[in-house]
């Protein structure tokens, strides 16, 4: 057991756990942040996606000892009801979720992607950015639409402020 410190969704945390315990398990079991899900457990599905220093990664493959002093953002950190992020609102508006298991991972991936660009992305760009997130219910059309909607809303917001 080791005492490991890091920042989750803006809050400093200290957990006492085996250093080789995957970050996903610590988020869910030790910190009660259950948005990130385990599905394949080997980096193929993206259900466990979180941001580490604003880059999207699979939390099921990162060992907790490796994130000492790093900044982690989960779907809870993107937005929680009633203060949802524009991406989450767009997913609801477009009906881009069915069973919802993959949704937190996709929202986190979309967050990293949209924060890194300043235009409304093409379908091809969104497909590349979300290539690591699998959804077995919706068929992706609505997910892609939701990301585009979020991007246009974000743009119009910045234009209003600017």
């Amino acid at each position, binding site marked *: 057991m080791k005492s490991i410190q890091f920042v989750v969704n803006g809050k400093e945390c200290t957990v006492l756990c085996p250093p080789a315990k995957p970050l996903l398990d610590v988020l869910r079991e030790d910190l009660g942040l259950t948005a990130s899900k385990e599905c394949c457990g080997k980096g193929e599905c993206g259900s466990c996606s979180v941001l580490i220093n604003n880059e999207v990664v699979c939390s099921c493959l990162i060992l907790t000892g490796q994130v000492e002093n790093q900044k982690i953002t989960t779907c809870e950190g993107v937005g929680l009801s009633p203060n949802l992020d524009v991406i989450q609102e767009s997913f609801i508006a477009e009906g881009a979720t069915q069973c919802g298991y993959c949704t937190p991972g996709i929202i986190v*991936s979309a967050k990293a992607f949209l924060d890194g660009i300043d235009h409304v992305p093409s379908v091809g760009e969104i497909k590349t950015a*979300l290539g690591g997130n699998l959804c077995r219910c919706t068929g992706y059309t609505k997910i892609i639409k939701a990301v585009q909607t979020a991007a246009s809303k974000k743009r119009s917001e910045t234009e209003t402020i600017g």
Partner: protein
Amino acid sequence: MLVSEIDMITPSSLSECLMLLSKKGRIHRVIAGGTDATVRMKEGKWRPEVWINIKNLNELRYIEESDDCIHIGPLTTHTDIIHSPILQRKADVLVDAAREVGATQMQNMGTIGGNIGTASPAGDTLPALYVLGARLELTSMSNKRTLPIEEFIFGPGRTVLKENEMITKIIIKPQSPNEIGIFQKLGPRKAQSISIVNVAISLTMEQDLKCREGKIAFGSVAPTIIRARKCESMLPLGQLNDELIRNIAKIAWKEVMPITDGRATATYRRDMASALLERGLYRLMRRWNNQ
């Protein structure tokens, strides 16, 4: 050994890391991105007593050009490679290959040193490194040696790396303006897939669609990456027109030595190796024509 019993040490410098590797005693393994190492730990295949965590050892994460060579640190991620202006200009085939590794998450986590050390016959950056003539610097506490990547890997997952050594640098020759390269991959789907067959091609061009020399390396069709020397020897035989490209692709069908496994049959792999090489050469010729 249970996962909960595995310890972790995070060295703060390369020299501290090499010192840890040279120590006898507890069974250790190095972990960086974790895209392979953690999966193997979960499967029970890799259960060291201690992980040596080098994920944030930033002194090994760089892309630099000096002395007519490009030096790449082993902890450079695939995302770093994709966004590197130096590599985009002077090692296009490696950038192409890095784009085909997994998807965004794997590209952010996985490192080039890890891809080399894992030595999978299907590793996507490996054929690109073969055609770029990559050399690897291996360092231990007491020694430093440099050898071509072709001498480093000798079987699936098997390399000449000693227990006390680590890959500390990847050195490639930058492409000159008349060199062009491409990476082609066939997987079960577009993103996030393991190669069924892949091929990297690098050509040195002359006037009139003539190729002075070229290198071709196939992945996933043999126990290691293989250079298609017979195909390479045909490249300078004339203008790279339809006829020559088709003939080279036919030779590729014979030159690869694939097996049947869960992903594809051997015959399908031969057909696809031939088709990918043909498509790659056509695309390169089109690009060269438009330059």
